[in-house]
């Protein structure tokens, strides 16, 4: 299992990472609104993460750190 860390305060909720993930690990957190006014991304299925970093590759704001 890989480890994901998010700088949630910088997230703009664009969802490109969610779409890029091949394992449906990510979702926008509808229960949270960050300082920028967006629903930030969160891992909803982290145990499925394979550490491919597709999410981080597509993140325009460089808020995702991936460890394996």
């Amino acid at each position, binding site marked *: 299992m890989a480890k994901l860390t998010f700088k949630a305060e910088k997230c703009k909720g664009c*969802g*490109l990472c969610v779409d890029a993930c091949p394992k449906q690990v990510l979702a926008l957190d509808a229960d949270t609104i960050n300082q920028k006014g967006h629903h930030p991304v969160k891992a909803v299925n982290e145990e499925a993460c394979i550490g491919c970093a597709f999410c981080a590759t597509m993140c325009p704001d*460089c808020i995702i750190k*991936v460890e394996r």
Partner: protein
Amino acid sequence: MVVFDKPHALSDAPLHYCPGCTHGIVHRLVAEVMDELGIEGRTIGIAPVGCSVMAYDYFNCDMIEAAHGRAPAVATGVKRSDPNNIVFTYQGDGDLASIGMAETVHSAARNENITVIFINNAIYGMTGGQMAPTSLPGQVTQTSPYGRDVSHCGFPIKVCEMLSQLDGPEYLERVAVNNVKNVKNAKKAIKKAFENQVNGKGFSLVEVISSCPTNWGMTPAKALAWIDEKMIPYYPLGVYKDRSAGK
């Protein structure tokens, strides 16, 4: 083991770009290349006028803000001042292909040993979505509200194809950043464009087909799909010139 983190050359400043704007991806790729080539300490970037006008805040290398379209001329000065500097410009389509066309063509013709990162998103983003020199035929923008009528305002400019006719430039490639595979290819092209400069080979331009969800009036995901559907067919990806290929 860390498999992905923010590159050192990218600053911690929050990017001002709209949600889903791919400028941020390209910024990161440039910064990753600076890290990998170990050149951040001798790199000087030139920011344009347009959405990426504040790029000077986003890179940790020394930066200059240039007048609209003049980045290649400013870069020429910086490079001629000290050829050991690694100099890149980061320009949008209005900056590079409209108001700055002369500077673009002539720096390419001189084979100026600089790296040009050219963001083609077919629109003027910063001013609110006007028609760009690269807006597609029929594309609706604020200043082409009935769609770009090529009989009235002419055809889009294909920068890589045009520059490839010159003897000057070393390397021209068009890439896109609308999916993981394309982003990885874009990274390779950007890296090569910087390596060319490090190796003294000359003018290297990477045209990056990018999205502008806000001014295209689409969700970020839909905008990436639109790149596949509309942009890439008009602006085919690939290498348009590589003088050192096979050598």
